[in-house]
């Protein structure tokens, strides 16, 4: 199965610009399905970006982050070809991760 994570990390001078799109329902727990039953909350709680064993960005998310989340940030100190590890864990304990290469 394809990863839930897509990353684009592009080096611009000394700064790596990172964009991530993740497939996840991010259900709030407040919405009813077609049968009128509440869809239980199901959302990513933490998203971590690691570069050379250092956490360069850590997101804590609640249910107000949109379905299929997008986030963009930038950090210094990376070189072309470096690996950037992205991983998430949701409120049900599910996880996914991906290692991207900085371009």
């Amino acid at each position, binding site marked *: 199965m394809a990863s839930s994570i*897509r990353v*684009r990390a592009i080096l611009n001078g000394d700064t790596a610009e990172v*964009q991530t*799109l993740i497939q996840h329902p991010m259900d709030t727990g407040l919405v009813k399905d077609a049968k009128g039953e509440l869809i239980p909350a199901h959302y990513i709680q933490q998203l971590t970006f690691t570069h050379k064993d250092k956490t360069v960005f850590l997101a804590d998310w609640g249910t107000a982050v949109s379905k*299929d989340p*997008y986030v*963009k940030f930038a950090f210094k100190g990376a070189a072309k070809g470096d690996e950037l590890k992205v991983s998430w864990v949701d409120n049900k304990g599910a996880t996914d991760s991906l290692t991207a290469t900085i371009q």
Partner: protein
Amino acid sequence: AAPALLRSAQAADTVSLYDVERFGNARILHMTDTHAQLRPVYFREPSVNIGIGEMWGRPPHLVERAFLDRYGIRPDSAEAYAFTSFEFEKSAGRFGRMGGFAHLKTLIDKLRADVGDHRSLLLDGGDLWQGTGLANAMRGADMVNAANLLGIDAMTGHWEFTYGEEALRANLARFKGEFLAQNVFLTEEAAFNDAKAFDTGSGRVFKPAMIKEIGGARIAVIGQAFPYVPIAHPRRFTPDWTFGIREEELQKLVDALRGADKVDAVILLSHNGMDVDLKLASRVTGIDVILGGHTHDAIPQPVAVSNAKGATLVTNAGSSGKFLAVLDLDIAKGRVADARYKLLPVYSELVKPDPAMQALIDQTQQPQIAAWSEKLATSDRLLYRRGNFEGTIDDVICEALRRELDAEIALSPGFRWGPTLLAGQSILLEDVLAQTAISYPETYVQQLTGAQIKDVLEDVCDNLFNADPYLQQGGDMVRLEGLSYRCAPSETIGSRISDLTLDNGQALSSGKTYKVAGWASMNAQDGKPVWDVVATYLRGVGLTSGGTNKVTLSGVDGNPGFASQS
């Protein structure tokens, strides 16, 4: 027969009205919101166009007497007929239909020839491709042909977007002018997926501006598309694009044009709506003139708005082909030294139709003529739409929805386009289409609670009367049948609508559920197109008394944007 007052003028090909004295070194012609009306139409301007707060009594929020007094127009004149609803029915018989692309073509060619080659530009402010059954069926392709023959140099858009990206791009591939929009960007997701854009760096989907050398001056024209396309229309038509006013990006663009590109004049071809443009002109510097549209306000003179670094002229040029604006600029090095502006009413009786354009129109309309000339009914009253709260043509649409779909309450959107029909005129199928032809015409029947209905009314009303023009979307209030209410425009959201009363005299109950019919929904619906519903109703029942609902206004006494609706 020609209308009596104009008959004497008819002998000449043109009359003095259209002999605009030459001035300056560049002539900009501006038309907007023609809504695909290829042939001359009647179009009654609003008798209710209320301005509240700072906008009280300011253009464009003047109607009838207040408008005539403000601009020194004689009440019995042809101009009064063109610019206001004052004694409309009486004047319509005297002065005839307005606009028409063959007539516009003649006028435009003359006004361009008057100043000589490479001394003029023709700009269209958008809402060019939508408004007739034909334009809707052809997704605007018919209007691209007309625009090319007319010689439009650049345009921006609004309803153009409601045909979706594929149709829009197919039309633009054939359009000989430029399509300009500084305020349309790829969404983050679309950019991530490498969706098509004019400039991938900025994410701008379309070319934002063009520079033309006119009369020795470098003129920049920036396009400003309707900022709220995905809010006013179903988002499914533009899923990859995000809009907005984009003040900051606009300021950067103006600065770059004036700086690196060394232009002498900057014109914003805007589909913001006039109130939005007036606010924008006070905040963004370096724009000489905003040629505005969308709110369909026919304003004879520009409004000068001062800002931190100078002043900007703001105009709005009406709708339906009724007007052609002539902006003559005297441009010196790096600045506009002087400007003259005229908003010319296009009296079709006074202008000879251009034969080539007439032939194109006849040929384009030919395949549909038989089917769409079907007479559905005869009008026994004036059928118009424009006005903040009510229009008699919307009463007919709502009544048709209510009867045909067996609903207690009917809703119809407060669109500002759609020609006027005089009493005694036949109502043809194409006339119904000209009030309803959109790319999401499906009707629906829904169960809504009284509270939900009130919320919808409050929400739409706030889009019309929010004290901040940037939060206005430039439509009119949703039309209703089966429900009367009181509205206080100068209140805030949640407090404007009250006294909701059903036809039977009972108060709308917030907890109770009602059967509501409507069309033009934001969500996909699967009911019959509204024009089928209205046509079936008119064929069967004909025009009924209609208009049992009533909107009572609070706090508008003496408002120059309010004349009695009679």
